[in-house]
Each structure stands twice: as C-alpha cells, then as structure tokens.
C-alpha cells in the first residue's frame, strides 16, 4: 500500500498546530524554570473536571473546559503560596500541590463513578487517532472538531506572544527591572499562566496529557540549545514542536503505533540530538572546543620545549629533540602525538630522522610563546612576593592565553632585563 495514502492530513494539521502552540508558550516556561508546570497542571485538571461535572451535572464541553481552566490557574496560584509558606523549592511546591489535587480528583471521580465515564486512557494518551472522525461544519466544509479549537489556540498564543513580547521578555529575565519600569511582573506572570492552562486544556482533549507535557518542555529546551535570542528561541520552539509532531506522526503511521506517544518520543529525540550536535551549546561542540584547546596547548608546549633546548644546546636555537621527548613534553597523551603531527604539517617543525627541529617559522612562533612565559614570570617576580620555584607553574598556564597587547605592555614595563631565572626574554 502507498505510504502517503495512509497519512491523514487533518490529524497531522491538528498535531502540528497543537505542538506549535505548546512550543510558543513552553519556551517561556523553560526560560522561567517553570518547565514542570505543564506536568503539574495536566494532572491537577482532574479535580477541575470532577467538580465541573458535579456542579453542571453533565459532561458539557463548556463546563469541563471552565473547570479544567480554573484548576490549572488554581494549581499555579497554590504552588506559589505553598512555596512561600513552606519555603520550598519551586518544584517541590508544585509536587505537593499537583499530587494532592490529583488524589482529590481520583476520589471525586470514584464518588461519581457510577454516573460518569471518564476513561483514564483517553486522558493520558489522547484520541489523535480518532480526531479526524469527529466532524463539524465550518464555513460550509466539514472539518474535524478539534481543528478550529487548535487553530484558535494557535492564533491566541501567537497574539499573546507578539503583543506582550517585550513584557514577557523583561519579566522573564529581570523581574526587578520590570517592576522599576512600571511593568507589573505578577500580572504578566498570571497572563502567561492562564495562557499555559488554556493551552493544556484545549490540547488535552485532542492529544492527551502526556503529549502536552512533552510538547511544553522539549521544543523550548531544544531551542534554548540553538540560540541565545529570546525571539528566535520562541519561533524555533514553535517550529521544532511542529517538526516533532510531523516526524512523530509519520513514524506512528509507519509503525502503526500510538500517535501521541510517538510524537513525544520524537520531541525527546530531537532534544537529545540537539544536546549532542548543537553548534555552540551541544555536548559535541563543547568536546570539540575542548579538544582543539588541548591541541593548541600541546602544540605550544612542544614549540616552547624545542626553543629552550635550542637555547641551551650548542647548535643555537635550531637544535632538535627526540620525537618521543617532544611527546612527553606535551603530556605524553594522544593529543601530544596529534599535536606533533599538526606542527609538522603546518611547517613549524621538521622531522630529521627521529628528531624534531624548529623551522624558521616555528622558531618565530616559539619565540612568541617563550616571550609571553618569561614576561609573565618577570612581572610576577616584580609584583608578588612569590618564591622563584612557583613562577613557572603559573606562567606555563598563562603563556597560552596572554593577548599580544598585554605582551607589549609588560615588555615596556619590564624593559630589557633577563627573566627571574636569568634567561633572556626573546624580543617580540
């Protein structure tokens, strides 16, 4: 059978819209360290649903929606109160509130169990599979009932983010500054929490609670790994959410598996991928940066050692060193070996049999490093009462990082005297 014919575009549209809506507000939750609010609210809507059923006496969608929304806002407010009174970390306060409310909800549902059919599976996993079967007429065409809801949610969240972007940004990063500028941080916070609750409640029915939890956090955190600018992060988060929804949906169709679960897995997978390969903040990029720094230090250490050997030896500065000795000088690691290879390839040293020697260009480079080292030693000796044997350690580290400008400043301050160990400071 043709794979494309299995795809239901309505379902895909609902999932993608929902994911983008969650991603937009979720980015702010991640920034504000409120990521677990989604988890909390999606549990504590249960007593809201129960109370709405008890009060309204039926499962009318309006009553259910109102009850769930009230419970969501109540959760956030209660958590803030518990946090203040109990002096608890935010997540612990949230945990106290949502588990208690959930327990209350379970008892309420048990109380009315004879007269209500609430399927926990439906709440948890959602009914994306059936979403496109439940139709309404909209402007003359028949669309899934969830679609106008999701579209409205998307528009509402977009409007909120665009209109209140400045306020949301400033209260997220610096609530005190916001207050000083006359922006009521508490009010902005309340608006955001209401939007989050509405997002959860509207998405709940279509995609299930567990997917809402994943989509509120994972795209925002993924975007956080990719950019430093909040505006870009929010847009990226929405796009990543939609991407995860598409990917997850296609995967679910291919495996004939639960759609909501697959989208949650896709969102988590995209986060893990970004955590490894993100250009600046990924684990891979960090490891690469670390490795290239280690290599540079090893290269410079080898050049420095070659220079010093040449200084002492009879053959002038061009003296050579056994290859193994050079590797040992740079720490005898795999990095040291690679560093030797790189120096040869860049024409800074040349290999003569088993010996390494500085080329004229290498000599120049080595002089710069040794100069930085000895300048710093002289400076330390002049300005700090350190014993002579402690100067080398400090300079050995700083020689790799001393800016050129600082070298000139130190040189003019120290003049043309030898370093504290009596060796000449090479001219720059």
């Amino acid at each position, binding site marked *: 059978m043709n794979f494309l014919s299995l795809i239901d575009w309505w379902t895909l549209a609902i999932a993608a819209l929902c994911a983008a809506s969650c991603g937009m507000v979720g980015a702010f939750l991640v920034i504000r360290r409120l990521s677990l609010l989604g988890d909390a609210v999606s549990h504590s809507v249960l007593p809201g649903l129960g109370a709405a059923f008890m009060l309204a006496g039926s499962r009318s969608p309006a009553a259910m929606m109102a009850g769930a929304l009230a419970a969501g806002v109540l959760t956030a407010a209660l958590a803030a109160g*518990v946090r203040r009174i109990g*002096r608890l970390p935010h997540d612990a306060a*949230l945990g106290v509130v949502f588990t208690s409310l959930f327990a209350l909800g379970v008892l309420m549902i048990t109380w009315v*169990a004879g007269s209500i059919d609430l399927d926990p599976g439906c709440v948890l996993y959602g009914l994306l599979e059936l979403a496109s079967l439940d139709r309404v007429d909209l402007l003359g065409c028949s669309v899934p009932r969830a679609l106008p809801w999701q579209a409205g949610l998307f528009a509402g969240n977009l409007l909120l983010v665009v209109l209140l972007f400045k306020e949301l940004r400033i209260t997220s990063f610096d609530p005190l500054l916001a207050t000083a500028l006359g922006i009521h941080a508490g009010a902005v916070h309340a608006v955001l929490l209401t939007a989050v609750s509405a997002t959860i409640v509207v998405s709940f029915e279509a995609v299930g609670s*567990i997917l809402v939890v994943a989509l509120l*956090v994972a795209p925002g955190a993924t975007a956080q790994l990719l950019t430093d600018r909040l505006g870009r992060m929010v847009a990226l988060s929405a796009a990543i959410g939609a991407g995860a929804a598409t990917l997850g949906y296609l995967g679910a169709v291919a495996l004939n598996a639960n759609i909501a*679960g697959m989208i949650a897995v896709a969102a*988590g997978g995209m986060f893990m991928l970004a955590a490894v390969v993100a250009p600046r903040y990924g684990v891979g990029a960090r490891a690469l940066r670390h490795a290239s720094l280690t290599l540079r230090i090893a290269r410079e250490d080898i050049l420095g050692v070659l220079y010093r050997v040449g200084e002492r030896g009879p053959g002038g500065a061009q003296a050579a060193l056994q290859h193994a000795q050079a590797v040992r000088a740079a720490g005898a690691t795999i990095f040291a070996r690679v560093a030797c290879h790189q120096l040869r390839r860049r024409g800074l040293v040349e290999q003569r049999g088993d010996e390494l020697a500085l080329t004229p260009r290498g000599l120049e480079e080595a002089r710069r490093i040794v100069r930085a080292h000895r300048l710093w030693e002289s400076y330390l000796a002049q300005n700090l009462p350190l014993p002579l044997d402690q100067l080398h350690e400090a300079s050995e580290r700083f020689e790799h990082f001393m800016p050129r400008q600082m070298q000139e400043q130190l040189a003019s301050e120290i003049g043309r005297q030898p370093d504290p160990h009596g060796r000449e400071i090479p001219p720059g």
Partner: protein
Amino acid sequence: METFLTDLARFASLQDANTRTVALGTCALGVACGVVGCLATLRRRALLGDAVAHAALPGVCAAFFLVQTRSFAALMIGALVFGALAAGLVALVRAWTRVREDAAIGIAIGSFFGLGVVWSGLISRRPEGAAAGLDGFIFGKAASMTGADAAAVCAVAAASLAVVALLYKEFKALAFDEEFSAAQGWPTFALDLLVMALVCACTVAGLPAVGVVMVVALLVIPPAAARCWTDRLGLMLVLAGGMGMLAAAVGVGLSAALPAPRGALTRGWPTGPLIVLVAAAFFVFGALFSPRRGALAQMRRRAVEAPPS
C-alpha cells in the same frame, strides 16, 4: 456509622491478613519515601521521582519484551533499569548542557512515557495477548498487594534507611553545603548518584502499590510537611519518615473502613489517593500552625512588628 466503627476496629486489630499485608507494605513505603524524599528535596530534585516513575513504563515493556512473561521480578528490574537511565540522563543533561534540571525532568517524563505508550501498544497488539494492561503495573493498586510484594517493599525500605543512616553525615553535608562536602574529600558526585539511586529504588518499589502520581506524592509531601517544623536534617528525616508512615496507616485504615461510594463499581475507596490526602492534610496543618514557619505565626509576628498606628 456502626459498620464504620466495626470496620475500623477490624483494621486496627489487624485481624484481616490482607489488610495486614497492605498496611505493612504501605507503611514501610511511607517511611522510606519520606526519608529519601527529604534528601531529594534538599538537593532541589524533588520531582526526579516523577521522571523515574514515568520511565518505568517503557522499562516494564522492555522486561516483558525480553522475558515474554509477566514475572513480577523481571518487570521490577526493567522498571528500575529504565528509571535509572532516565535519572542518569537528567543528571548528564544538567552537567553537560545549559538546559536546567526542571526542563530535563520534564523532557524525561514526556519522552519516556511516550516511548512506553508506543511500546505497550505495540506489545499488546501481538497475538499472545498476555501483555494487555502492562501499564496497570505502574498505575498501582494497594489493595491487591501480595505478601511477596510487601516483603519486597519492606526490603527496599530497610536497605534505603540503612544507607541513609550509614552515610548520614555525608548526606547532610551534601544537602546543605556541597562545597564543604567536596572540600572534605567526599565523592560528591558519587553521593549525588547514590541519592538518585535511592529515589529510583523507592519509586519503583512503590509503583505497583500506589502508582505513579501517588509515589511522587509520598516523596514530596512528607518532607515538605516536616520542613515546616524544623531546620535540622536529623529531625526532618525522622518527622518525614514518621508522617509518611502515619499517612499510609491512616489512609489504609480509611480505605478499609469508609463505606463504599454509592454506585461505585469497585469495593471501597482507593487507598493511594487517601494516603496522599492524609499526607497533604499534615502539610496544611504544619503550614498553618507551625510555631515558627506557619502562616498564622507569621501573621501574628507581622502584627506585633507593625502595630496599627
């Protein structure tokens, strides 16, 4: 009313073997979760148990996939392995990226549970059908606890308490002053991992009895309630453990003694939510009436400090 009192008396005298088992198991769980929860809360990792509990679902599926039977031990081990995997990933994300712990926990909850939903769906569609309702394992049912389950819970609880007692000094330093702990030459990271391992063990032990949300509640609420009364770790551990146990005992008692709701399909009230609500009542009581931290005491202090002019 009379039946309520008779039922309560029956429960209190622990005549009923089933009630005895359930009471023993949940009380042991209450103590262990209360004590371990204190350490987790003080390490600002209160909801790690939430991630572990949700990661248990794919773990259970993996175990079933491998051994092809619903052996309780295999399912527990699977849950434990995946719980530890989730906790480890959260720790790695925190250590290696700029993403914060709460976001890492949220992602772990969503993705692992999503994986479990997918996997259990795929398994239950297979012809053997023995896998139907694998997810029941993690939603828990205290009333169906068997003697073996209770013994397993007691063993985990005893082991956790022993670890905390043996390493009390180290955990104390870790909880309040990580730098001091590191300066003492104690393996801070290993101790941190040990706290996470304890959280994993207690969470997984509690899942079949009380379910995902309720085990998180047992890890979070008693420590929060204990914190209202004291700043000292030793006292906090004892209080949290005691309140966890008391909440479990009262909850099981209420569940056994309360008359069943009208028209309910099941007999009696579910135990887990009752335990959690009793624990929540302890917290509310402490938050209101604790002499130093309570809301009432704070209000009175404010009134004394700023008399109406």
